[in-house]
């Protein structure tokens, strides 16, 4: 198992190399000149040209790519074109808030989502089912943007209990953004758990278990739930990957100093080094999370083994 894990870990490297080429090409193919955007709307041409020279934007693309990768391999992600600050430091600064928010949002939404989905499956066709699915459809349908502003109005402006926006390290600042962020994930998890659960309940081993007289609660929690968890875990991994990219909407509404907003700000001014670094980071997240998910399968279902 450990050997397999390490092998998979090494396999990430070629994937990231391909991603780096794609990211570089994609970012440079966007129309728009970063030097122009950096110099400001009323800049004079000499300043723009000076910046182009300094940033090496006049070199051929392959040269720019190899220069860039050479630096990346030594751990230097370059400097943000927009702020002149090292990209590594800038991302490190925003990684914490995004990770913190993603984990908080994921934690409560998985607990509630999986629970609601399981309840809906067990009480299929009863009021518990309808209630859980009504809430979950609402969760998917409410735009995050609107939900966020609504929560702000109620809990921050009207009741005055919580801060409106921003993040300075207080737990209270995490409440509204994580609820907003988690609402949709909870809804997705609930629906996903429901369908996974129902699929499993149709399996023959469930009928067998019931036929041999196993108690219904044991059938549900030991036989059905455990097996239904496999696709659910995959989904959790996928959702976590997305959340780690930073939610643009939630980070914007709540002025959260995370990666999602950083990405948007970077796209607007064609901040190449930042975009490339973020794309690499996002790809790494997904590949790595997939690996972890595969490992978790083995824990849940002892039949799955890796050699």
């Amino acid at each position, binding site marked *: 198992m450990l050997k397999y894990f390490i092998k998979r870990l090494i396999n990430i490297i070629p994937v990231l190399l391909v991603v780096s080429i794609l990211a570089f090409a994609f970012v440079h193919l966007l129309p728009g000149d970063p030097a122009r955007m950096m110099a*400001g709307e*009323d800049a004079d041409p000499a300043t723009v040209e000076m910046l182009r020279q300094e940033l090496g934007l006049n070199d051929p693309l392959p040269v720019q790519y190899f220069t860039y990768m050479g630096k990346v391999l030594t751990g230097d992600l370059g400097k943000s074109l927009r702020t002149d600050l090292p990209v590594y430091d*800038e991302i490190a600064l*925003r990684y914490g808030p995004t990770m913190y928010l993603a984990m908080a949002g994921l934690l409560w939404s998985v607990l509630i989502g999986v629970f*609601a989905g399981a309840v809906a499956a067990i009480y299929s066709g009863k009021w518990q089912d309808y209630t859980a699915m009504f809430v979950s459809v609402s969760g998917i349908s409410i735009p995050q943007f609107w939900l966020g502003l609504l929560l702000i109005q109620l809990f921050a402006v009207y009741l*005055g209990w919580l801060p409106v926006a921003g993040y300075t390290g207080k*737990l209270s600042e995490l*409440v509204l953004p994580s609820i907003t962020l988690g609402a949709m994930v909870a809804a997705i998890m609930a629906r996903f758990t429901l369908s996974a659960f129902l699929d499993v309940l149709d399996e023959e081993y469930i009928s067998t278990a019931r036929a041999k007289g196993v108690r219904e609660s044991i059938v549900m929690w030991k036989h059905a739930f455990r097996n239904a968890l496999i696709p659910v875990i995959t989904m959790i991994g996928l959702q976590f990957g997305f959340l780690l990219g930073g939610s643009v909407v939630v980070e914007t509404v709540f002025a959260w*100093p995370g990666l999602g907003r950083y990405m948007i700000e970077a796209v607007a001014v064609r901040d190449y080094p930042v975009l490339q670094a973020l794309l690499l980071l996002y790809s790494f997240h997904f590949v790595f999370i997939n690996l972890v998910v595969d490992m978790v399968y083995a824990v849940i279902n002892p039949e799955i083994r890796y050699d």
Partner: protein
Amino acid sequence: MLFKRLLPLLLLALLVSSPAYAAGKDIIYASDSTAKSLDPHNTSDTYSGSIERTMLQGLMGFDTNLNIVPVLAESYSYNDTATEFTFKLRKGIKFHDGTPFNAEAVRVNIARMMTGKYKRSSLMKPVKEFKVIDDHTVKFILKEPFGAFVNAVAHPGALIVSPKALEKWGDNISKHPVGTGPYVFDEWVSGSHVRIKRNPDYWGEKAKVDSITFRPVPEGGARLAMLRAGQAQYIDPLPAELAKVAERDGKIDIIRQPSIVARYLIPNTQYKPLADVRVRQAINYALNKEAIIKIAWGGAATLLDSVIPQNLQFYSKQGAWPYDLEKAKALMKEAGYENGFKVVFLTPNASNRLRATEMIKQQLEKIGIKGNIMSMDIASFYNKLESHRVNDPDPMPFLAFGGWSASTGDADWGTRPLFSTAAFPPAMSNFGFFSDKEVDDLIQAGLSSADPQVRRAAYAKLQDVIWEKAPWGYLFVDTIVAGRLKTLKGIVPMADGGFDVQKAELIN
């Protein structure tokens, strides 16, 4: 079920959140912008520049209406040909790190700018030589007459940084600004906030608040919510569509200040129909500016009544092009385009600009000028405009939604890069390829002297000449709309889109 699960979380939230956000002597300034740099010589955005101005000062500066006022200089003088500018420095001032402010400190800063390596190096481009006359007198000798040079010295890009700090931090000065201003730098958490503290040893009138925190809050609704919850004392901008909500809140003052951001429609004069001055005049008659301001801009604008906004130096009012469809149609007929022609409407995809362009499209359809809208993000938009060249055999028939803010506050930077023949792209921003000998001459005349009388006369004539030739479809000037708690006094928006917090004060 969901609520039961949420309840503990909410109770927890109640426990940990401090119940009162009572403002002490600290102010939170929430804005849609993010600080990008605190190195004045390498700053290209107004927001960062305004934060720098709280800590750093220049020889000269601007008041809120962009009039030039002396700051670290006591006085200045210049020669008749506008090639030599001498500044007498204030005595007895020290930087926050104790370094004395003197001619040597100015020299270090100007020399840094003159290396040409920084985004604001262009401000010192006219300078041939910088001379220290004595400990408190400095002289700039220019390559050629440049009447607007004092504006360059007053620009936030020419703020003076402690030479000792520059030596210590080099280009990392951006994270460690040290100046002479009423506030000192406290901390900058990139993406989160910049905080400044009161300078107890300030040489002038001392600040009345302990600290100010500048927080980026990109969403307008969240900004207003912060103000209403008392978690911010000042928000900028207050989105025009939310102004009504804010008005109903008795705790809030709404501040409106005309900016120097001009909005206009750029016709490509290389395209034959748009080369005809009568067609361009017809466009001006056919545009219902008031309607566009009201609907697309939420009322937050005033008519553009000269080629430069009223808060730029040497502005001279020209009146307006009234909305007159009959006159517009007559002019189109006279020019031989009774049946109109096809164009492409170029615009950045920001929602207000897109709305405005949609209205412009509808209005121009009435005189037969028809076409589709091509909208794109701002970087692609400039890329598109800058890609055209003079004498293009197949010029793109565009009408582009343009905007300009002349950050030096002077008529020169409000006209030369936009209307002179030398400013055709890629050189500068004359995207419509407007070219006129008389206009070129008058632009030069405005720079040939530093005498305000001479310059005023040249720019008055210039504005008069350009106005009739209609190189643009003249639209409007943005109004800055900001929100402030009534308990806060002294923070005011500046016409260049920045702000002044020197006199900030909390009252009860």
